[in-house]
């Protein structure tokens, strides 16, 4: 047709122009980054079918827990991380940090190529060849001077092949490998050494216990293996068959973990050990100990509940009550060793907890010394301090830094940064320009774990494999490869390693594991199986232990605090940022902290009475002064903290580390003194008393929920255990309606959320961001309540008849996909409508943005695109191609992951059947470490979701509005006050 027309552009010409222009743009934009091999499929790579994801099993390295993950790769790009259900650690679940690992991979502030510092102190990019040459020369120069022993490789906790390689390399160079973890849990090791002669961190079986007593162990947040223990806790603490376990948490502050406890007890900071001894004493004296006190009766005699009560400030009655429950609700478990309560007597406290477990007969039952954590192998804090002093004395010539940020994580008083300046040559393998790497002379950026080969073993029973899930985003190189390559270039080391790539090295070292594995067949099959399963998992038998006589030599003392202020200063690890490494990920910054719902910042928690005394209100600033320094920090008023304690999360207050981390909040570590735990030498986090004074500054406290109570709306409902046991009168009544009920054919998608299981960790929120291309908007827009989260965790503080006087309740709130949805009839253009499967469909293209649907939404779960939000390159590579990226002016909301539903239906159709329960999981459900969310087909009466929706505990939020939600919440179950 176009040929008939005179003038204008012909179709062919148009296509040509477009092709040339587009091609030029592609070439121009991809010159700096080696991406062009990924997307234009002139010759399609094998195994990639457009539209069909590839899943790669790997291991998460966001914290030492080492969860197994599955990474979804679409058209060459990793777009989603999910827990690997084959991994015995996390059994398919994940946490917010694990989900956000993708934003480490695609972080726009990643170091994009090797950098070296010139004489002017500026970092200049150079090629890998040049970079490796620089390093080689440096090593040879040093060895030419025949100086040995002054090379140090400082890494985080790496186990497995890389650990082995670094060890061998350092041996060859005469250097030293030091593993430094911010939260190394040294007192746990030491206490076990004293108590049982085993210098290890054991595995706990929370799921097997009926009564859990935690002395500051924040196992839902950061303690040892949060996903694993949250999952176990959910099993133990959920209501099933008219019974449920009880959980008591002792900590000066009601942490997120404490919020899930039936009782929160705020003992005086650092006296948890006495409380444990008091409970043990009561157990032994009441004759409840199965081993009759196991010879510890004498030791315990000094710690009668009366005496302990006066030290800890916990009422005698509470102590005896716990003792009674702890010994009768068997098996029970006491855990301890949370970072935030690590004071100078931490080991003593943990010995006391061991004693408590011992007299209650839990050792070997719920505490398992067979399967110990490899975290036990990291270097001690003393090794770190002596390293710093060698650096200070100029004894270190080359310092390698691998995935550590001691300039941020070590207390300022240790003067690490100053010592670092005295090291003539610092090499960093970091992916990010953090506080430590900034000072490096040479930066050889490592691939992130999602781009590299490797392995990590968190505990003896798990050998996790790490495999690249996509080609490197930037011009980075795996550190293992760099080591091998440099070793090949250093003359003396030539021939030391037979492998030229780390992949070969990894396979060779896995041959040892293969050799140890029984009946594994040939190595290739074993290797392939391991790759598919995410690693090699084995059974490690539990180990019988007995109490050691060394225990009697332990003197239980009160902790020492430096400083003469009025307040104990508590720095607690953040479940969003861990030791600060998560702070550069916008998803984690924008994930509201569960208790305050604050975002993009950090704050000091102040008890309401203290706030009155200090004359501060929410959003005011306090200056907090320890002997080591002063910080100025915003106030959040929280009833869940002792009046004599102030607490600040660890992880914010970066001075570099990229645009998302820099200059946000305050780093509390800067004012911590250099106190150590008396027996283990580990760093004592809770060891200073501070002065606090109001400063003349006020800012809006940016949070996502400004209310704290339910205002009688019955949002989060609860029943007591007794009520349930006596049988709840549950009726499902249907309000009369003018219209006949809706009929659904095969599917009515629905959900059940067990509020007894939900711990408020926010994994679902971040998973939803990742799956559904939800924009992060930044602090300024969250301050205007314009966050885009499709699922939010509402938190309410309810007055309660417990020790704390209140109870924290969480409510994951997402689109209820109402059967009688208020949003649907008010849309003038049918942009939202009811689909035949019960979903409230949302047609983005049709939306004109009247926003009436959001006004009329009873649950206020609709989010409006006030702007067209941008993902800075390459964060946009993470976007899920199955989900539309929304632009300004339109409404969006939870779709029940309609793309997953459709995918599941497609697969079922291929097999000629209906979708069955368990065919697929929606993103929030998949991520939830507590298994609180169950999605399914309500029309299938055998589905789990359908059954749960008729549960006795089931209720609909705001049922009186008659919206007929598809989500049934199961009431929280509270223990009756004894």
């Amino acid at each position: 047709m176009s040929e008939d027309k005179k003038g204008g552009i012909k179709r062919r010409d148009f296509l040509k122009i477009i092709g040339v222009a587009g091609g030029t743009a592609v070439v121009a934009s991809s010159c700096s980054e080696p991406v062009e091999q990924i997307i234009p499929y002139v010759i399609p790579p094998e195994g990639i079918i457009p539209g069909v994801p590839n899943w790669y099993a790997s291991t998460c390295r966001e914290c030492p827990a080492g969860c197994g993950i599955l990474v979804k790769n679409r058209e060459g790009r990793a777009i989603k991380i999910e827990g690997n259900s084959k991994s015995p650690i996390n059994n398919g679940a994940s946490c917010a940090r694990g989900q956000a690992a993708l934003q480490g991979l695609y972080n726009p502030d990643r170091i994009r190529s090797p950098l070296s510092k010139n004489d002017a102190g500026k970092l200049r990019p150079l090629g890998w060849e040049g970079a490796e040459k620089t390093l080689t020369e440096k090593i040879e120069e040093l060895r030419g001077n025949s100086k040995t022993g002054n090379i140090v490789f400082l890494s985080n906790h790496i186990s497995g092949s890389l650990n082995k390689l670094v060890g061998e390399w350092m041996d060859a160079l005469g250097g030293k490998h030091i593993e430094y973890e911010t939260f190394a849990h040294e007192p746990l090791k030491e206490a076990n050494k004293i108590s049982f002669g085993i210098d290890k961190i054991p595995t706990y079986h929370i799921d097997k216990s009926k009564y859990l007593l935690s002395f500051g162990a924040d196992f839902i947040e950061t303690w040892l293996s949060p996903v694993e223990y949250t999952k176990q806790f959910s099993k133990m603490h959920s209501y099933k068959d008219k019974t449920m376990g009880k959980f008591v948490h002792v900590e000066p502050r009601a942490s997120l973990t404490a919020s899930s406890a039936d009782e929160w007890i705020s003992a005086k900071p650092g006296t948890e050990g006495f409380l444990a001894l008091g409970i043990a004493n009561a157990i032994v004296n009441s004759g409840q100990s199965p081993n009759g006190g196991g010879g510890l009766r004498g030791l315990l005699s000094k710690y009668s509940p009366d005496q302990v009560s006066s030290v800890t400030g916990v009422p005698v009655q509470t102590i005896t009550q716990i003792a009674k429950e702890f010994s009768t609700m068997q098996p029970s478990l006491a855990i301890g060793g949370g970072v935030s309560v690590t004071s100078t007597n931490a080991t003593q406290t943990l010995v006391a907890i061991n004693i408590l477990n011992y007299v209650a007969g839990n050792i070997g039952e719920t505490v398992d010394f067979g399967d110990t954590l490899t975290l036990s192998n990291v270097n001690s804090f003393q090794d770190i301090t002596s390293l710093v002093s060698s650096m200070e004395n100029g004894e270190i010539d080359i310092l390698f830094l691998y995935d550590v940020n001691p300039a941020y994580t070590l207390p300022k008083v240790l003067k690490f940064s100053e010592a670092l300046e005295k090291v003539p040559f610092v090499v960093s393998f970091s992916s990010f320009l953090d506080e430590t790497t900034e000072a490096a002379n040479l930066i050889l950026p490592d691939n992130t774990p999602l781009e590299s080969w490797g392995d990590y073993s968190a505990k003896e029973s798990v050998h996790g494999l790490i495999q690249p899930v996509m080609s490197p985003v930037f011009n980075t190189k795996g550190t293992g490869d760099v080591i091998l390559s440099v070793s090949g270039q250093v003359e003396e080391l030539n021939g030391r390693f037979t492998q030229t790539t780390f992949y070969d090295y990894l396979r060779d070292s896995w041959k040892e594991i293969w050799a140890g594995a029984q009946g594994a067949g040939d190595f290739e099959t074993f290797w392939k199986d391991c790759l598919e399963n995410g690693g090699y998992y084995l059974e490690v038998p539990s180990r019988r232990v007995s109490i050691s006589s060394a225990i009697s030599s332990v003197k239980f003392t009160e902790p020492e605090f430096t400083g003469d202020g009025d307040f104990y200063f508590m720095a607690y690890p953040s479940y969003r940022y861990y030791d600060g490494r998560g702070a550069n990920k916008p998803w984690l910054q924008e994930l509201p902290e569960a208790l305050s719902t604050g975002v993009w910042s950090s704050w000091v928690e102040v008890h309401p009475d203290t706030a009155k005394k200090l004359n501060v209100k929410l959003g005011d600033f306090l200056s907090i002064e320890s002997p080591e320094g002063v910080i100025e920090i915003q106030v959040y008023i929280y009833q869940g903290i002792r009046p004599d304690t102030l607490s600040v999360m660890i992880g914010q207050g970066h001075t570099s580390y990229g645009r998302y981390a820099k200059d946000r909040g305050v780093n509390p570590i800067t004012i911590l003194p250099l106190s150590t735990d008396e027996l283990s030498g580990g760093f004592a986090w809770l060891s200073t008393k501070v002065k606090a004074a109001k400063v003349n500054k006020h800012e809006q406290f940016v949070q996502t929920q400004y209310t704290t109570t339910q205002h009688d709306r019955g949002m989060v409902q609860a029943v007591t255990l007794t009520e349930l046991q006596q049988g709840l009168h549950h009726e499902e009544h249907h309000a009369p309606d003018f219209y006949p009920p809706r009929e659904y054919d095969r599917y009515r998608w629905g959900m059940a959320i067990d509020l007894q299981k939900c711990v408020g960790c926010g994994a679902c929120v971040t998973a939803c961001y990742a799956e559904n291309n939800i924009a992060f908007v930044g602090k300024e827009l969250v301050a205007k309540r314009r966050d885009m989260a499709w699922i939010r965790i509402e938190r309410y503080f309810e007055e309660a008849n417990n020790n704390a006087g209140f109870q924290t309740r969480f409510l994951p709130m997402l689109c209820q996909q109402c059967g009688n949805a208020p949003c649907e009839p008010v849309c003038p253009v049918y942009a939202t409508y009811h689909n035949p499967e019960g979903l409230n469909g949302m047609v983005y293209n049709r939306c004109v943005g009247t926003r009436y649907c959001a006004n009329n939404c009873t649950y206020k779960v609709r989010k409006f695109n006030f702007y067209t939000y941008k993902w800075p390159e390459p964060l946009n590579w993470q976007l899920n191609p199955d989900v539309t990226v929304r632009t300004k002016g339109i409404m969006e909301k939870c779709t029940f992951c309609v793309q997953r539903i459709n995918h599941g239906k497609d697969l079922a159709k291929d097999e000629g059947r209906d979708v069955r329960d368990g065919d697929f999981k929606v993103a929030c459900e998949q991520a939830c470490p507590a298994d609180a969310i169950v999605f399914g087909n309500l029309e299938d009466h055998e589905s789990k979701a359908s059954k749960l929706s008729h549960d006795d505990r089931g209720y609909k939020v705001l049922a009186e509005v008659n919206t007929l939600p598809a989500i049934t919440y199961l009431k929280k179950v509270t223990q009756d006050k004894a």
Partner: protein
Amino acid sequence: MSEQNTLTYARVNDDIIRMLDKPTFKWWALFLPTLFFVGFGLFCFIYQVYSGLGVAGYRHPVFWGVYITDFVFWVGIAHSGTLISAILYLFRANFRMSIYRIAEAMTVFAVLTAGLFPIIHLGRPWNFYWLFPYPNQRELWVNFKSPLVWDVFAVSTYLTVSALFFFIGMIPDIAAVRDRVTEAPRKIIYSILSLGWKGSNWEWLHYTRAYLFFAAFATPLVLSVHSVVSWDFAMSNLPGWHTTIFAPYFVAGAIFSGLGMVIMLTVPIRKIFHLEDYITLDNYDGMAKLLILTSGIIGYAYGAEFFMAWYSGNPAEWGQYYYRITGEYAIFYWIMIVCNVVIPIPLWFKSVRRNLKILFIMSIFINIGMWFERFNIIVISLSHGFDPAAWGIYKPSWVEVGITVGSFAWFLMFFLLFLKTLPAVSIAEMKEILPVPKKEAQT
């Protein structure tokens, strides 16, 4: 002029057509700033379209704010125009004669202004036409269940009818102007607009019937349009919106604010153009009585709303009303009460009703009060819904203020143009209430 108490046909023509003389300096001094503010409003709107609605103060959960307030406010203003011209015509209330033209003009321009806001407030205003049911190849249709679609029909019907009514009522007057003016462009324009009106008996016969029918047609619109606007809110389930009282409450409020606006506009016009003989104190007295009535109705509605919220025992409903009087927005609630219920109380006295200064000031307060009434209904209800976790505070941004000011300027711009182009007082109808002229008087 007031010393000559007798109005004659000739004087009516003279006086009213004289208003269309060349604009004076004063007129320009008013008109140019309005143009500036219209331009600024336009700039704000373009900026908003370009950046996204985020430049307005909207936030979760307050998705409607000043724009919808303005919309309801202007639709409300529009109402009294039709009330005065149509309903009072049917009731043969003679006090309307002098002011109905101004009131009608006000109606048309207010609807023109109001009609902009639903578009301004859209997230994607370039797609506004999707709200009209027009045939298209994609077979997409509008949702007739949505009150917003009813709104589209209500407002567009209202604009059409009020504009036609305005125009038809003006035909004989335009003919009169046509007969007066001599210079070419004006003569031609008025000739076209007068549709060849000759003033024959036959024409008058049909004209008066047509006018009566239009009046009858427009009358139900006075009630229905604002009822429909109120259903934008009442049809939702939000505490503070979901109430059956809204339709009469909104209609009464609309008439209240519209009369206030008529007073606000006519008092200065009367003074500037020396229309004391045309717009008399009796006219104002009549309007002021209507103000008392409507103020009483909305005062009752405020009380009834409040009582029902308490009496219902519904925590969300009562929470909303308790929040209105005590929460962050309480000041606006009390402004509304004072302006709409307390300030009109002196109107019970005849001397106050006939004091134009007091009436003028009062009418300003009434309009402020009525603007805040809409603001309170919309914003406070939205900010304090069912779910306490989703409560939030909305503050308008400078863009919204700019567009609101621009809308007043836009309205005023049309009004000023109207004063200089069309007869602001009905010549023909004024003559109906004058004695028929004797032959010699016509010299």
